[in-house]
Structure formats: C-alpha cells, structure tokens
C-alpha cells in the first residue's frame, strides 16, 4: 500500500478495498458455520452505516456514537461507518456495568448507541438516564423478533436494527475529512479513579498503523483475541490487517481460543502476557503427558499448525516466557505503548535476536526524552488530549507536545527502550486491565469498620484492611472476618470482573504514610489473608 496516499481512516479502508477487492477479510463464527466478509463487503457496509450516521448528524457538528459488544463484523462496521465522515466513535468496554455505561454515554456526549443484543434489557434504563442519545441501534441480534407486531411493541420509535440500516442506505463513498478530525474517544482508567476519554484523531491512527513495516502480508491470517474496544486490538489487529491485506479472524470468546486456533489456523496472533502464559501451561501439560513427542511439535499442533509470530503488549512479559516460546519455534515479541499514543511507542523488530529485557525499539517517527527518570514521548500518534478534561490533559501533555508516560526507564544507543518502574499507582494486571486502586479504596473507605485500606496487585487484586478499632475493638475476629467478606463481596457485585477484589488481607497496624498522610504504596505489606 502506498503510504503517501493514506492520511485518514477512510483512505486506508478505501485503498485496502481497492487493492484486495473480493478476497476474504473478516471471518467470524455464526453458529456452527464461519461467515466470511470480503474487503469490498466491509468497505461498502461501513459506507452504508456512514450514511445513517450522517443522517443523524443532519449537516451540523460531527456526532459521537458509542459502540459496545464482543468482537464482531457488526461492531467493526459500526465503528468505521461512524469515523468515515468525520464523526467520532466511542468504543466501550463490554465488561462495563450499567452504571459505567450510563456514565460514559453521558460524558462522551454520544448521540448514537450501537449495542450488541445482550445489552437490550438495559435500553429502557439508558433511555431514562442518557438524554443525549437519540438513536439506539442493535447490531447483532442472533434470532429475529418473533413477529413484526411484537417487535414494534417492544421497540419504541428511535430504535433500529443494523440490518435495516444496511438495507436502507446506499454504499455512497463519503467525502474526505481532515486528518485532524476526531476519530475516537477511548476511555482509559485514571489514577484519580475517574476514567479519562483519550481523544485520538484520524492522523494519530494512521501514523501508528504506518510506524513499522513488514509485520504481515496478504498471506497473513490474524486471530484477534483481545477485547475489541481496546486500542491495541483496534490498531494492531484491525487497522494493520487492513493495511497489509491480511485476514482477520474474530475470536468469539476467551473460552474458545484453543478451538479457534485449530479452526482458523492463524499465522499471527496478538496477546497479553496472561494469555501467552496459559497457552504455555497447556503445551507443557500436553508435553508431559506425551514425552515421546517434542514440545515444539505439540506447540505447532496447539496453535493450529501455522502460527509463527505472536506479539505481546498491555503488560509486562517476562524474558523466561519469551525464551520458552522462542525455543518452541514461535517468535513471541514484546511491544510497549499506551492508549494516549494510539498505542505503539516501541516494538521488537521481527528479525530481532538476543536481548529480551527491552520492551522494543522506538517505532518510526517517535522521539523519547527522559525527565526526572520519566519517559516522555513525541510523535504524530500522540493524542489531542482528554475529552473535556483540561486539567488531566495539562498533567499529561507538555505545552510543546510531549506525552508523559508515567513510566520510568531509559533508551540505549540502539534506540531500544527499557522500563524500570511505573511512576503512576495504576495497577496493570497481567491480563492488561488497568485498575485504579484509589477507585476501589474509596468504596471500602465508606464502610465504618474500615479505618485504612490499600488495594494492590497480589497475583489477584487484594484489599488489605486495617479495621477501625473504635468499631471493631470488641468484635470477635470471626464476626469481623464475616462482615469484611460480606462487604467486599457486596462491592464486587457492582464491579466489572477485572476490578473484583479476590483476596482480602487483615492487618493489625496502620499503614506507613508520608508526612502529608498519603499511603506509601511501595511499603511491604504483610496482612493475614482471610
């Protein structure tokens, strides 16, 4: 693909359709079958959705459209149809609870809500609480409504099915927009507990899509297993397959990765370290059961027979695991990035050998400087700021355009980036989920029998609690333990699975604090697990 012709997301999709035509682009499971969509199908369907979004916009300012659901072709065309004509997509985490969906629909000023059928029961509540949303579009209904009469009785005016949109609107090519048009508001966890809306422009995505070369080709088959709302999945699975003309196979559930590896036989896969670790355990167990077969042969079979390359991002990848994969004949390459940088900052080159401790070589066009140990980056991928949050924007972006990563590290003479720690308190679980400890601590602090609490990563999320002696002084320990467990279970019920506190520790002394009474997070913790 001629990079010089591509400056907006519409260009990328159009050129990709022109080059690859009716070749299969997206594959997804539909019951027991596989549904294939070509590059042309994708481009035309996204243009139809674009016609609908533009009609809602009605010639005024660009509109924002939120999209929620598991990975699907419908999700992808809803997103691209929004972005093509300069409107803004708001990808939401499929694990958000109702409260979180309401909050982000309102904070993002979304006018359209594209949702998977599993969220249907929430729609009446969203209509009451999200006055800005004027169109609700169900993108994936597995079974048709029983009868038209029933369907209209249950779907008040303003509700639509994506299939209706695809029938009603012609695939007219949208007019080009500015590379500075806001393409997405992507929400990320913040240290204050309030998620921040990262504003990414068309040119940010294009820069990040073009910042490395030779990562795939037209014979490449990618199995996409990461959450689709996540920037890493969006840029590195969806936009990169479009650039290279590779095939994109959608994984329907984390439960089915082993089956889908055999079904789709990918050549490339993007993972987070936790997934790489689990698959490695499966291979080790299979190798132990059949010692006569070499581990590399077992790995070859487990991965569907064609896998050569895995990219890992989102969390720390140990050198041991990289080595274990490399020994099995599969390149497991680490990268480093953040949502605010669309996301890639550093990547391991495909032909790299030796060193495993760095997180990759700086991608093309990305500059780094170190200030008080912190890594600052500057590139065309760096976000425009946080949506309606000038205070947080000012903290993250310097006046001359450097992005503060919050990570500590250094760059060597060969432009390889090394991380030495995190400046922020944000907990990054091994699955790549970001969890703000303050957000959970604030909830626990509201309980009268909790005097102090610190939430940290203890393989699982752990809440260590110092009970309030005024309230718990004469309480038998069994009673205290029961109350704490019940209270944490109650809070967990209101949280997405990734934020649930799976372990509670009880301590008999206050935490160490700074002179300004702030928790020292680096202190060693020693509470008893209950």
């Amino acid at each position, binding site marked *: 693909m001629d990079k010089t012709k591509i400056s907006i997301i519409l260009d990328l999709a159009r050129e990709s359709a022109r080059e690859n035509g009716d070749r299969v682009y997206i594959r997804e499971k539909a019951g027991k079958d596989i549904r294939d969509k070509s590059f042309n199908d994708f481009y035309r369907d996204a243009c139809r959705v674009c016609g609908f979004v533009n009609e809602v916009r009605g010639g005024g300012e660009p509109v924002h459209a939120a999209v929620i659901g598991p990975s699907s072709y419908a999700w992808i065309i809803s997103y691209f149809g929004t972005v093509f004509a300069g409107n803004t997509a708001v990808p939401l985490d499929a694990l958000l609870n109702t409260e979180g969906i309401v909050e982000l629909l309102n904070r993002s000023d979304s006018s359209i809500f594209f949702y998977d059928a599993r969220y249907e029961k929430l729609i009446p509540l969203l209509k009451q609480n999200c006055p800005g949303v004027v169109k609700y579009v169900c993108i994936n209904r597995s079974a048709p409504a029983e009868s038209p009469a029933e369907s209209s009785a249950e779907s008040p005016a303003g509700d639509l099915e994506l299939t209706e949109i695809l029938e009603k609107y012609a695939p007219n090519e949208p007019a080009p927009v500015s590379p500075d048009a806001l393409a997405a508001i992507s929400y990320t966890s913040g240290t204050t507990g309030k998620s921040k809306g990262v504003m990414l422009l068309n040119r940010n995505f294009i820069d990040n899509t073009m910042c490395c070369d030779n990562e795939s080709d037209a014979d490449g088959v990618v199995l996409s297993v990461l959450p689709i709302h996540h920037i890493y999945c969006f840029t590195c699975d969806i936009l990169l397959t479009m650039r290279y003309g590779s095939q994109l196979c959608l994984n329907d559930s984390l439960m089915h990765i082993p089956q889908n590896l055999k079904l789709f036989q990918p050549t490339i896969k993007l993972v987070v370290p936790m997934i790489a670790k689990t698959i490695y355990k499966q291979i080790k167990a*299979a190798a132990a059961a059949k010692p006569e077969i070499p581990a590399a042969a077992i790995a070859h079979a487990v991965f569907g027979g064609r896998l050569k390359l895995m990219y890992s991002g989102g969390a720390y990848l140990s050198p041991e695991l990289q080595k274990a994969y490399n020994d099995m004949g599969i390149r497991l390459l680490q990268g480093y990035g953040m949502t605010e940088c669309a996301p890639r900052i550093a990547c391991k080159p495909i032909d790299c050998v030796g060193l495993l401790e760095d997180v990759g070589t700086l991608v093309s066009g990305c500059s780094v400087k170190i200030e008080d140990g912190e890594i600052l980056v500057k590139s065309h991928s760096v976000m425009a700021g946080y949506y309606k949050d000038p205070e947080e924007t000012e903290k993250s972006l310097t006046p001359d355009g450097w992005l503060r990563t919050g990570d500590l590290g250094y760059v060597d003479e060969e432009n390889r980036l090394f991380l030495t720690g995190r400046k922020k308190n944000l907990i990054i679980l091994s699955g790549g989920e970001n969890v703000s400890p303050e957000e959970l601590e604030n909830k626990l602090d509201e309980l009268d029998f909790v005097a102090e609490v610190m939430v940290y990563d203890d393989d699982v999320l752990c809440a260590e609690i110092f009970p309030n002696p005024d309230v718990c002084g004469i309480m038998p320990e069994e009673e205290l333990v029961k109350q704490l467990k019940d209270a944490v279970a109650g809070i967990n019920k209101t949280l997405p699975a990734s934020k649930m506190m799976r372990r509670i520790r009880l301590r008999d002394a206050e935490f160490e604090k700074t002179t300004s009474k702030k928790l020292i997070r680096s202190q060693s913790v020693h509470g008893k697990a209950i």
Partner: protein
Amino acid sequence: MLDKMRSIICNYVDISPEDITEDSNLTDDLGLSSYDIMCVLGELEEEFGVIVDEAEIVDIHTIGEAMTYSKSLQG
C-alpha cells in the same frame, strides 16, 4: 465429574489431583488466573457438550460451583 475437573485443572497448575476438592477456590486455593478459568470452562463445554454463558462466569468461584453449574446446563 470431580475426577474430570481434577484432570483438567492439573493441566494449568502444578498440584496433586487429590488436593483439589469441591471446596477449592479457583483463584485463592488453586492459583488459576482469570484466563485459566476461561480455558477450564471451555474444556468443560467440550467435555460435557454444554454451552457456558459468559455472563454467569463471575458467580463461579469454587470447583463445587463449577460442577453445579455444568450439571445445571446438562439439565
């Protein structure tokens, strides 16, 4: 069913099958990661010919709960 569960779980953690009981907590006692648990449930789907609803996974914390859930799916 417990024996089948034991043999599946032993593929993910280095633990003796006899140490896995119905009361074993999947994360705290067995040390399974959230993705390990998804894979275990995927294997149960294949083994028992059932379809697991992802929305209900958050309520499964112990071996016993996973067994009860699988049995309920088998009807």
